[in-house]
């Protein structure tokens, strides 16, 4: 590859990484935390016991739905396991006259049509919180904006991230040699080595997570292949996800079979554990029960399913095997979400996500470090430099403080508070806004170290608070062999120490003075060539 092309790809790498880099940092950070979505769902509801017998919970769920929504159009039950707080239920009431029936009509998302059944089979009473779901939703829906705008923004940022990764690979002449290099205390060279290390170390993960992330939004970002083949998108969806249409209610009441009995049969036929059930027209002669395989043992996120007649419990339909392309797309989405990952693999996913977050952050900082050394007058940098520098502090140092605030709000906000779950999230943004104000008002070096220090302290104190202020904590759960609070608290301690270390490093940092005796320009290429010497 010629020098000119390498330089052009290097420039493209810088700009495609920089322009939406701050958004990418937010997406990477919240996405990485979201790998522990279910764990945090439990951690942030410390009142709930761990689920030991899933089928008991299912029986309780069926009893609850029989009482609460006996003539609903459909019920949805997520079968619990010991990783989740309980059985999540949704139900869709019969559409009223004139209301649009169909996939988007009513019910599923509305807060009054959902419930959580706890380990004892009874509706769970826990503090109102979004738990880990907030991080999962935020990383593609963002917040305070219509989800379509958010998904377009995140989608475009993800494609730019893909460009940044591909150009980053292509720009490297000797990617593996550079990977092992770490020059310390050498200003922008050190930052470049750090950026390279976090990028190349987890390169398979970064490539996978970015491309598959784009794939999860493919219906929005790239509908044209569908438009070329189908007049209506639902025809494609019917072809890809064959299902049995829900029957009309006959009005003849017939009791529904015991769902837990169907689970065992379905597990045998589908060859794996069941993840969720959907009941259409419960309590009626036309009732049907669909059982879906759990994503915890499948790479393909589009799980196979089997349909039983609700009155007799006889199987009536089983989903066909998907075609190659559909399976490929399903596996891609499955790899991105990582639902198949057990705890050990989930830790690897998490560590790779941390590396990715550090990669984005170090890239953003590298941009300012590189340009600071080229400034004609370091005391009065140009506008672009000042914008990037302040945004870096505001986002990279400010947002983690907001996340710490969310965890504190989860512990401290009164349980009876109105809209408590939303207020936990508001606390994140309120604290983040305060951090942004600090980032704009103070000198960057002071802002960096004080924000990192505040984040470190708040993360260190939370596990300590849990030991005295939360009944279900790291020590109390050891007795029953539940390692979740220990894992979360230990991680918070580790990150707290890390942030304090960073705060100290930044506070003691003395910026390099400009070297006037440089013979050749300090481009990325030259910095990497120096390693060979």
């Amino acid at each position: 590859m010629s020098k000119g092309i390498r330089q052009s790809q290097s420039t493209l790498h810088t700009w495609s990484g920089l322009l939406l880099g701050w958004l990418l940092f937010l997406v990477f950070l919240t996405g990485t935390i979201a790998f522990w979505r279910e764990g945090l769902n439990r951690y942030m509801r410390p009142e709930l016991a761990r689920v030991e017998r899933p089928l008991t919970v299912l029986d309780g769920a069926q009893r609850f739905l029989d009482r609460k929504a006996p003539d609903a159009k459909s019920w949805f039950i997520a079968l619990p396991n010991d990783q989740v707080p309980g059985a999540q239920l949704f139900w869709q009431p019969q559409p009223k006259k004139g209301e649009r029936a169909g996939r988007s009509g009513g019910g599923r998302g509305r807060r009054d049509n959902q419930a959580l059944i706890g380990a004892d089979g009874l509706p769970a009473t826990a503090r109102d919180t979004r738990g880990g779901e907030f991080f999962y939703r935020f990383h593609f829906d963002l917040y305070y904006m219509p989800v379509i705008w958010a998904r377009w923004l995140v989608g475009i940022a993800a494609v730019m991230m893909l460009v940044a990764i591909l150009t980053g690979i292509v720009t490297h002449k000797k990617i593996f040699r550079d990977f092992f290099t770490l020059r310390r205390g050498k200003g922008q060279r050190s930052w470049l080595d750090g950026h390279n290390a976090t990028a190349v170390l987890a390169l398979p993960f970064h490539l996978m997570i970015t491309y598959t992330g784009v794939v999860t939004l493919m219906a929005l970002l790239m509908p044209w292949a569908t438009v070329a083949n189908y007049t209506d998108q639902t025809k494609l969806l019917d072809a890809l996800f064959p299902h049995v249409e829900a029957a009309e209610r006959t009005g003849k009441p017939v009791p529904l079979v015991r769902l837990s009995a169907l689970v065992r049969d379905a597990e045998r036929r589908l060859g794996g554990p069941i993840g969720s059930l959907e009941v259409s027209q419960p309590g009626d002669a036309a009732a049907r029960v669909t059982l879906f395989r759990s994503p915890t043992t499948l790479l393909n996120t589009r799980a196979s399913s089997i349909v039983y007649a609700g009155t007799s419990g006889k199987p009536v339909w089983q989903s066909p095997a998907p075609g190659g392309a559909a399976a490929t797309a399903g596996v891609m989405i499955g790899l991105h979400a990582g639902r198949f990952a057990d705890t050990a693999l989930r830790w690897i996913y998490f560590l790779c996500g941390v590396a990715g977050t550090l990669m984005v952050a170090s890239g953003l900082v590298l941009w300012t470090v590189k340009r600071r050394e080229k400034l004609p007058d370091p005391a009065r940098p140009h506008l672009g430099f000042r914008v990037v520098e302040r945004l870096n502090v505001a986002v990279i140092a400010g947002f983690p403080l907001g996340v710490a605030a969310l965890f504190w709000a989860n512990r401290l906000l009164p349980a009876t508070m109105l809209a408590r779950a939303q207020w936990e999230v508001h606390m994140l943004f309120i604290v983040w806004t305060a951090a942004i104000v600090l980032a704009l008002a103070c000198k960057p070096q002071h802002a960096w170290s004080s924000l990192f220090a505040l984040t470190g302290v708040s993360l260190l104190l939370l596990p300590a608070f849990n030991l005295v202020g939360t009944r279900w904590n790291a020590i109390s759960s050891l007795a029953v062999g539940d390692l979740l609070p220990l894992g979360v608290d230990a991680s918070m301690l580790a990150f707290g120490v890390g942030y304090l270390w960073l705060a100290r490093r930044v506070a003691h940092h003395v910026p390099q003075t400009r070297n006037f005796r440089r013979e050749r320009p300090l481009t990325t290429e030259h910095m990497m060539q120096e390693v060979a010497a």
Partner: protein
Amino acid sequence: MIARATEQSVVMRRRIDNTLRFAAAVPLGYAVASLWGAALARVLPMARSEATVTGTLVALLLCAVAAMYAYGARSGWRATWVLLLLGAVAGGITWMSVTTAGRV
């Protein structure tokens, strides 16, 4: 004075080149990737839903590749007309296929 005029024209030419490259990378690149996705969806010898998914997956990758080509090409003009040509080919294939065989 002549030197000044030449310097200005160099800056101007670079600005035009950069603008062309950006236009080639983003709107034109997306359009070309989409058209190739549509063409593959029409032409690939597999079930219709399968070809649609394959075309979509490939097109997403082509978005990134088109941007890399737009900046790696020898000039902004070259990137523009190469992408226009590729887009026209894909567009032609798609249009002919849709007008003869129609959609579902």
